């Protein structure tokens, strides 16, 4: 009987691991279509291109007609496990908040060696050879996120957060200024370069923000991913240097 129970435990963890390697095609972004359908008459199943065009035109009109700052508009989209909400108007650094990489805590943070961390998480941990081994490795929320901390680099303190690639969950919510996001290429795949500080909030698996208040990031952020791991690099680093660091992550 004990043998059978042992088999069950092993099977359960093997099944979970296999689940993370299943081939699932990328999901289409349905937010705009869902919204169109909810705004339109309920009987209509799918609006034709005329309707789509009309809605696009309406969005454009709103964008043009609305003065900056009065009725603020944000874009919501997701990229590599991060939900981004864009707002017009700059995010200013609050004087009261000590803004430094590694600022506000993630849930269940545990400091450990890189080797220990590699056993604790289900995805490969990438280390940028441009920076060398991190001074500190922090595993959070039961192995959901790994943070590599570099307190001293030529660019000042840097932080790299890593989480499972192609995630079906949103890990962070960022509130960024509309003009600050640029698509870039990292190792031949898509990445996002976010200039300037923005608010960053950690989301638990059920989608709710953690109790800790959102923290303000420092410097700039690069988001990118490989098939198995999604990464964000944060610190007072320029775009070219950030891309070089990202390219060296193995």
């Amino acid at each position, binding site marked *: 009987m004990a043998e059978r129970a042992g088999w069950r435990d092993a099977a359960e963890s*093997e099944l979970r691991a296999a689940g993370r390697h299943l081939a699932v095609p990328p999901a289409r972004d349905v937010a705009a279509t869902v919204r169109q359908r909810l705004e339109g008459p309920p009987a209509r199943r799918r609006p034709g291109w005329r309707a789509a065009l009309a809605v696009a035109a309406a969005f454009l009109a709103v964008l043009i007609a609305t003065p900056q700052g009065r009725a603020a508009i944000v874009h919501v989209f*997701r990229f590599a496990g991060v939900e981004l909400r864009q707002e017009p108007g700059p995010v200013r650094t609050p004087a009261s908040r000590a803004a430094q990489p590694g600022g506000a805590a993630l849930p269940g943070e545990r400091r450990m060696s890189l080797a220990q961390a590699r056993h604790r998480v289900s995805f490969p941990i990438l280390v940028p050879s441009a920076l060398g081994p991190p001074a500190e490795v922090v595993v959070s929320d039961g192995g959901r996120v790994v943070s590599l901390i570099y307190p001293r680099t030529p660019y000042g303190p840097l932080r790299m957060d890593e989480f499972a690639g192609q995630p079906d969950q949103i890990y962070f919510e960022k509130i960024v200024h509309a003009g600050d996001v640029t698509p870039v290429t990292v190792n031949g795949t898509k990445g996002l370069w976010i200039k300037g500080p923005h608010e960053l909030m950690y989301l638990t698996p059920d989608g709710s923000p953690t109790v800790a208040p959102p923290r303000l990031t420092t410097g700039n952020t690069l988001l990118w991913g490989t*098939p198995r791991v999604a990464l964000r690099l944060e610190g007072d680093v320029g775009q070219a240097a950030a891309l070089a660091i990202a390219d060296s992550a193995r």
Partner: protein
Amino acid sequence: MAFVLALTRVQREPHGGGRCITDGQVRRAIDDTEAVARARGGDLDAYAVLVTRYTLRAHRAAFLLGAGEEADDVVQEAFVKAFRHLSGFRTDEAFGPWLLRIVVNETRNLTRSRRRRAALALRVGNMDPGAAAGDIPVDEVLAAERRARLVAAVNALPDKERRVLVCRYFLELSEAETARVLAWPLGSVKSRTSRALNRLRGLLVPEQETRVPSG
């Protein structure tokens, strides 16, 4: 890649949890409870936050439970239906499992109307499309083979047993969440999980090895 998915308004509310004060202006992230409450009042901006947050999870569930290429359509339909049925959502429950139940129903409607086997065969993805074969360590190759065998065995299970394993281990839902999502009693989730795991054992472990050595 289109970045603009939806337009929502900035929240400027006087007080509440999880907020960040910047320069006297209060900005808040919307949690699920608040987004649902506002969406119920007809706020499509708040609903766009939920759609963005749950699209990937809903898509993965639809795909793994048999929607195949039509998973995106199922997700779209589920979000539209969920919005129209928000009045039936109990504020003390989690939004995720409630939405996934609608996704499961939509997937079933689709597979029933197509009169085909509910689930398409699941398969393990390529390890690392960028890596040359020689770069992959042997233990990773062996682990990949083991996973492929396991997934093939899951594909061979009867429909209900496969569904419960997909929910419990591939979608990583708890027993209670699985019960909610599949609309089964909790006891059925437990018994079908046990039965499915036993059947997997039968499929994977050769007969002579399952015998307990005596003496």
